[in-house]
């Protein structure tokens, strides 16, 4: 799984890290974001909704999975 490590980075940097990673993610593939900023839990799902990607949930603390749909 592709991983983006944004731990220690403040909002909106984890979302920027995720967006910059997307071009290297295949459609259908899952990218895992590690982020400990409190805003990430809200903003990663919101980003997925705005960008038409699939938010798969948070399988562990500070961990968020996103599937590229397009």
């Amino acid at each position, binding site marked *: 799984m592709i991983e983006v490590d944004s731990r220690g980075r*403040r*909002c*909106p*940097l984890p*979302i*920027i890290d995720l*967006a*910059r990673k997307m071009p290297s993610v295949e459609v259908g593939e899952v990218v895992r974001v590690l982020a400990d*900023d*409190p*805003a990430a839990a*809200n*903003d990663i*799902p*919101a*980003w997925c*909704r*705005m960008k038409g990607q699939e938010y798969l949930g948070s399988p562990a603390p500070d961990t968020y999975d996103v599937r590229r749909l397009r």
Partner: protein
Amino acid sequence: MEYRAVHAGAPAYLDAASATPLHPVARQALLAALEDGWADPDRLYSAGRRAQQLREAAQATVAELLGVRPDELSFVSSGTAAVHAAVLGGLAGRVRVGRTLVHSAIEHSAVLHAAAQGEAVPVGVDLLGRLDLDAWNTAVAAPGVALASLISASHEVGTVQPVAAAAEACAEAGVPLYVDAAQSVGRSPVPPGWSLLTASAHKWGGPPGVGVLVVRKGVRWLSPYPGDDRHRPRPTGALDLPAVVSAAASLRAVLGEAQTEAVRLSALVEKIRATVAATVPDVEVVGDPVERLPHLVTFSCLYVDGEALLHALDRHGFAVSSGSSCTASTLQPSHVLEAMGVLSHGNVRVSLHRGTTEADVDRFLAVLPGLVADIRKEAGM
């Protein structure tokens, strides 16, 4: 500096939802009352009686404007003090029924802080920031509910709440409803059916330091503060009587022009909503586009640091506020944006007032896209 031509202009204050500039009538009344209303209104000499007359006149005026009885209304030292008195006194009055406060997830933080003293049950909102009425109806009907709290319209995103329907559910359950009407009073009517209501003068163009608390007849309210009168809200400490007089005079003036202003400001908000969505890429304009306050609009820009955007706008003469976590001391994003599930970073709240002109709005709209683009470029987006 490509925007030199457009940002030349007087600074524009666009944060009326935090504090609205003093209405000219409020200023006049304040100056007059400073001469006349300085004495302790509870004293029996003539200066005290004069102060008492002023207080009673102010009370009668605001009560009439809000459609309540004068003895149902109290002035306290701030909007926050009014909120705390409503929540804590409302809960204390019904302690025999239970300790639970049902509240929307988008209440003002003053409500949430007071709620933390009891058992609080939050009720969610949808993506537009509107209360989930089904969940509300279930929550207020549960055993042990002492009080329910619903903001009249969101102070962060402007969405007007279904107060009448929420009040019906409360009436059916026998639970008093408290409405925080700070953003509505002076701008748009609040539907009836509530038991307690609060407002804040500096949100309608009166001076700061005046809160209004209404407790309807027959509603059990018990003072959470030390003092002799346990059943009637009273200010803790001396009331700023000149400010109270000014608040009452300005509310009358503000309501006199409220309908015209609502139409004018609502059109400017519509312009902001449409233009921001069209000219700023990757932006989300949040809140209900129709069922909303006339003067307030919020949007979030992807990949933008909210604090950086606030500072950039300030340098160009625009005062706005933000619910982004980087602008909060706690690093927590706004609980309102979170409850809605909308983007919390790059957030800007613009709120207009009677001094806001279309030229101010046009200048803001001309400057904004460039500032957002610059911040994104710097972040490598």
